[in-house]
């Protein structure tokens, strides 16, 4: 992979506080990368350092082979969309989109044609003469996107672009932005705290916490194989059962023993956390010799719409509880209700173990 953007040992400190610690990252040309993490994890700081808006304390950034580490924003090559959109309220949509073109001394006709093309691209062909205040949030976001793309930058930076919108608009814009990015092939970095947004939009996700990268990988990698307990917890829902590693492939939780994939990095006897996703808990058609079978009692049943999230008290393990997703069919077929007793299995290949 030849990298379009190369970040090396990037750090940012505010006094004693380390906002970013030795971040290294490569992004390929045409890739859509999401920086994902809770607020304060450093994802926006990293984006602003890449843009040159808040320069790093140390480390280097190379874009297309050129060292841009010390360049001011105006000498870098990027377009940016902010959460607030930062549209110029006193200029029309046309003037906003053409803002960066006018200063490049292009012929007026060429600018007009480019603006028309961009507005068509973001699906607002007839809004050119309106002012931003006359547009909805979603429409403003599209104008901001068109303005950022107008000068054909090599890198598109999106800082929480969807978080100010309501849920329905957000869903639609997710697809539109992704489709637009694919059509234009522009290398894109999006900052978000919404894991669903990252999972649906990104080619690769960079999960961050406390100013460091926790894991980099495709959405499937991140969801199926979270590298750390933090990632496992932050992306999707996850059950965590506290226990001890009894053997390299067995974890003891209270009085129960669970088979797990072979653990090479952890010594026998260490405290660990056994994890499994709610949708991976098996209920139907359990073979007689199924591994990790546990008897449970349904203590809560929360209707979520397409499925029910069940809280299960694990028999013989004190107050250990599991959360599992049961489909409506399953609930009907098995007659599951609060108080029902049933057997579930935790498939060993779906179980992951983290040091406590």
């Amino acid at each position: 992979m030849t990298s379009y953007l190369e970040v090396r040992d990037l750090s940012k400190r505010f006094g004693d506080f380390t906002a970013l610690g030795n971040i290294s990252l490569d992004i390929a040309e045409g890739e859509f990368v999401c920086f994902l993490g809770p607020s304060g994890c450093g994802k926006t700081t990293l984006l602003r350092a890449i843009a040159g808006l808040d320069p790093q304390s140390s480390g280097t950034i190379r874009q297309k082979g050129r060292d841009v580490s010390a360049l001011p924003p105006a000498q870098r090559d990027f377009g940016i969309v902010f959460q607030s959109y930062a549209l110029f309220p006193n200029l029309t949509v046309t003037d906003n989109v053409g803002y960066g073109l006018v200063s490049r001394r292009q012929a007026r006709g060429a600018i007009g044609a480019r603006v028309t093309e961009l507005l068509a691209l973001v699906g607002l062909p007839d809004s050119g003469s309106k002012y931003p205040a006359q547009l909805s949030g979603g429409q403003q976001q599209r104008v901001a996107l068109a303005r950022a793309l107008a000068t054909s930058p090599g890198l598109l930076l999106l800082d929480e672009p969807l978080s100010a919108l309501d849920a329905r608009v957000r869903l639609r814009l997710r697809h539109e932005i992704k489709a637009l990015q694919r059509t234009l092939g522009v290398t894109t970095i999006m900052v978000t705290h919404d894991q669903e947004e990252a999972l649906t939009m990104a080619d690769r996700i960079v999960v961050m916490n406390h100013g460091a990268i926790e894991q980099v990988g495709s959405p499937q990698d991140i969801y199926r194989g979270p590298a750390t307990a933090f990632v496992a917890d932050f992306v999707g829902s996850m059950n965590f059962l506290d226990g001890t590693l009894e053997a390299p492939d067995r974890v003891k939780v209270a009085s129960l023993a669970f088979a797990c994939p072979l653990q090479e990095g952890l010594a026998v006897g260490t405290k660990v956390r056994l994890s499994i996703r709610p949708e991976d808990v098996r209920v139907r058609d359990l073979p007689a010799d199924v591994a990790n079978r546990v008897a449970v009692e349904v203590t809560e049943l929360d209707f979520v719409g397409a499925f029910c999230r069940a809280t299960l008290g694990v028999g013989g393990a004190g107050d250990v509880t599991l959360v599992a997703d049961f489909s409506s069919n399953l609930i009907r077929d098995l007659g599951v209700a609060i108080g029902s007793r049933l057997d579930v299995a935790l498939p060993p290949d779906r179980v992951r173990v983290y040091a406590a």
Partner: protein
Amino acid sequence: MGLSRDDLVMRAGLVVLAGLLLLIVGLPLWALLAKGFEDGDGRYVGLANYVSYFSTPAMFNSALNSFHVAAVSTAIVVPVAFLYAYALTRAVLPARWLFQGISLIPIFAPSLLPGLALVYLFGNQGFFKVLLGGSSIYGFDGIVIAQVFYCFPHATMILVTALATADARLYEAADALGASKLRVFFTVTLPGAKYGLISAALVVFTLVITDFGIAKVIGGNFNVLATDVYKQVIGQQNFSMGAVVGMVLLAPAALAFVIDRMVQRKQVALLTSRAVPLIPRPKAGRDLFFTVFCSIIAAGILAILGMAIWGSLIKYWPYNLSLTLGNYYFANFDANGWDSYFNSLRMAAGAAIVGTAVMFVGAWLNEKTRGFGIVRGVVQLLAFLPMAVPGIVLGLGYIFFFNAPDNPLNFLYATMAILVINTVAHFYTVGHLTATTALKQIDPEFESVSASLKVPVWKTFGRVTAPICLPAILDIAIYLFVNAMTTVSSVIFLYASDTKLASVAAVNIEETGATAAAAALCVVIVITSAIVKTLHLLADRFLLGRLQAWRRR
């Protein structure tokens, strides 16, 4: 960090601004400070001047008098202004806009005006002198009454802002919890307005202690700090002692300012963007009470203004009450005649144009320059300093600094330019704060966006930032114009015979005993300021609405 051309231009601008502020604020104050340690011939004498000041009972007494007047005036103005502001924001008043407008009238008048009106009403030949029994209006009582009139709008404006920002949800919550009206007042209303009250008290205290015009007209033999400075400098030509009194006057004003800034900093955290504005609902008893209360206060204000107007139109108070315009032929009372009024207009227009440009561009540079923390800190400090400095102290500093023979800027002395510069410096803080607030309210990322689009930052300033901030820019210009028309304290040391201002001429005319002509000149100033302010309101309402169609949804 790499610097772009934008960064370099903005930093250069900021350095120029810091240099300018140092020249028009910092160095004059330094010159004043230094003067206090010199004798009449410019030799260093250490603390000798201060020792002689504090060991002269007559002088030290003035300081006590100043404090006494300021404390009593504050104790009267703040509660009255609180009730008035409460009525404007929390009760349903008929013609609320009228009550609000009347409360602002004193701002358009030189502080001389209430003093003159009181002389007419209660002076040696006053209508109501008998009401005072044997005592005289000249002195403590007169000063306090005039100060209450003069400071009232300032306190009211602050308290209206404090009370208007209340969150309706807090009142609904208190109602839902069954709290009594009294308990709601003490647990919700008062704490919400606490910082406003402290701020209003400090502002009034500072205004009273630093005001010169009122004490000059109606103080009689009751000496205060501000008049002492004038007497030392103009009367006795004792510049060193004038500087010492100036420093003594600076201390309480600066202290009040520092406390106010500390309090303001706390207030920010209280306001949330989610607050639901409180809209008062009609309630007969309460509304009647406040309508009567506000009518009485408004009548008082109008009476004082009306007395000044009537007095200016009367032939020979109190013996010949027939009306005349004779008092408006200022040439009969002062060598400059109407010229001083036109000087004031020119000065006010100059200060409004130059000052607004410097203040707005300066605030923008200070907000938007990347890095460069030390210079920005210096600019911020120098921009805040004038608020803490009484005008008469700043004016004195200007004499020492600009009139020094070895100062290359000496040529400015006794020109119209120095009056403009001094006025801009004197009122710098409020303009700077207004501009900064407006700039903080617009999206902070405009500059980032224009950098990413390779548009020079000053282009975005001209095409986006300045047009968006036009209302604030107009506010600053009008504020400067009105204050330039009415100010007396700072410019009284700086005018030359051909640049005398109307407000100063009014002081001089009053000194000759021509009270009616002085009142006439004050009335001309009030009318001018009020017309300019009215034009501003009309422009705000109609012109801006058309120019700024983008604000409509």
